[in-house]
């Protein structure tokens, strides 16, 4: 930005502006045949919880690794009355989330929201919202590597056989290895789970903090991997168990700090570096959860009061 430029009046951030639906595309970008193909894969995935269903993944107008699998699933299930929320690392205002939300606002003309409770569809990367989901919502995950056995067995033919014959001993070998080296299970994200007592599934790179939320979740969970061309699903109210040993049970992360903005002690916290002198603060990674708590009057150590009553008390 040049110094001579005149100061611009404040404008709403790009992602807050309403978006016009564009002409010339089919509803939600994909053609109807493709959507039917994807819906068939989704139905099969729901029928066999945790099983990876191959599907004819399409080119999307953004690169692999940016959520093409999740977008195709979203495009296949979205309807005109749906309200879409997109999060990336828990936040609604990050690049990936903003762009995918705008994409569906443009190509499907659907309503979008940042409120977890208002959304009927939530597409996510790396997080599950803190607020419990309900049975009229669908959670769609973007998945980079759908095969949980990939790191122990590189051969696709062999991993398929292992799934088919339920030979999951090697999954525990990797957990054993972690305990032998570090004294505890160090896998912190993409922590393998067993779905409905049968298939081992990669929960996508969500922190293991979120694994317990998948268990008996009321919402339907769909997983799309665009590059790897796989779709899988966890139906509502299904058992999802994180793998562990009897003497080294599964545990989730915990923090000594509370959220610096809203004071929450039960949410997943991001560490934010604030200066060059080692200053830092911990804030909720779920931006909507944090904002909602602040609106309800909760204030953290470094948060500013939001409600008039609090402002009065502060003055």
């Amino acid at each position, binding site marked *: 930005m040049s110094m001579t430029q005149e100061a611009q009046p404040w404008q709403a951030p790009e992602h807050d502006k309403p978006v016009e639906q564009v002409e010339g595309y089919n509803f939600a970008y994909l053609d109807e045949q493709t959507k039917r193909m994807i819906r068939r894969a989704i139905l099969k995935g729901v029928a066999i919880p945790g099983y990876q269903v191959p599907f004819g993944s399409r080119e999307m107008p953004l690169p692999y690794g940016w959520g093409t699998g999740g977008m195709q699933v979203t495009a296949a299930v979205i309807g005109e009355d749906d309200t879409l929320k997109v999060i990336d690392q828990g936040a609604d205002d990050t690049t990936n989330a903003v762009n995918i939300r705008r994409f569906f606002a443009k190509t499907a003309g659907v309503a979008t929201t940042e409120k977890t409770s208002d959304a009927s569809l939530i597409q996510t990367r790396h997080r599950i919202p803190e607020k419990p989901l309900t049975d009229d919502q669908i959670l769609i995950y973007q998945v980079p590597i759908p095969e949980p056995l990939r790191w122990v067995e590189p051969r696709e033919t062999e991993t398929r056989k292992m799934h088919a*014959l*339920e*030979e999951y001993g*090697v999954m525990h*070998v990797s957990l*054993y290895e972690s305990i*032998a*080296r570090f004294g505890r299970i160090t896998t912190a994200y993409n922590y393998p789970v067993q779905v409905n007592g049968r298939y081992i599934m990669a929960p996508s790179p969500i922190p293991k903090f979120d694994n317990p939320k998948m268990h008996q979740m009321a919402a339907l969970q769909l997983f799309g991997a665009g590059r790897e061309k796989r779709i899988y699903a966890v139906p509502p109210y299904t058992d999802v168990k994180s793998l562990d040993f009897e003497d*080294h049970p599964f545990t989730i992360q915990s923090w000594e700090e509370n959220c610096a903005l809203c004071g929450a002690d039960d949410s997943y916290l991001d560490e934010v570096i604030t200066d060059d002198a080692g200053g830092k603060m911990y804030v909720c990674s779920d931006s909507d959860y944090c904002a909602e708590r602040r609106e309800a009057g909760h204030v953290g150590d470094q948060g500013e009061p939001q409600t008039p009553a609090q402002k009065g008390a502060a003055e």
Partner: protein
Amino acid sequence: MMALRDNGPLLEVEGLTQKYGHQIGCEDVHFSLYPGEVLGIVGESGSGKSTLLRCASGLMQPTAGTVRFDTRVDGLQDIYALSEAERRMLMRTDWGIIFQNARDGLRMNVSAGANVGERLMAVGERHYGSIRDVSSEWLEKVEMDLGRMDDLPRTFSGGMQQRLQIARNLVTKPRLVFMDEPTSGLDVSVQARLLDLVRGLVRQLGIACIIVTHDLGVVRLLSDRLMVMRRGRVVEQGLTDQVLDDPQHAYTQLLVSSILPV
């Protein structure tokens, strides 16, 4: 370690034939193996030893013939008539396969302890402490230094890798172990130590064993019975000492007389 049926054979191979197109891998092989018995298979390169071992150990379906194993629950069963799930279960519990090249039988990117514990975890053991106890017990049995338990197998010498492979296979107390040239590629002193170890374990645990080798010294030391193969066919079989000391077939005579005297 007692077999369920003391009188019957543990493994029964009948009319086993494997063809690679017109090429014969092995042809019309018959033998029975009884619990606790060690059978040696010798022959020159290309005589069909390894083909026979692969067919008998469930790794490759033969063109013709049957391989029947005395399963713990159902008695003698044709292993190729079992479902793949049952066959693979058998292979990782009641059987052990020790490969010539330790890299084929080990997971090189996980520690020695995890290599030994893998079979336990595969059959449902979920207690870290007890898996570790059993693993270290077996590493001791194969004379490995427990201080190396958390090291990767690729940092081990060839002899140690081979001993690790043995521990990994014996941890589920199999009744039958297949060995494909277990000592080739090792120097003689390491070979001697390994053979001594295998002989001790096999006798102590009463494991039946099929050893494929081209080294007559190995079979002299380990095996009770011997089969000599040539061009895919068994040309002579009998008690080891009998075959080696009084060879009848011209090829066996050639084989025995080819040993270099020290």
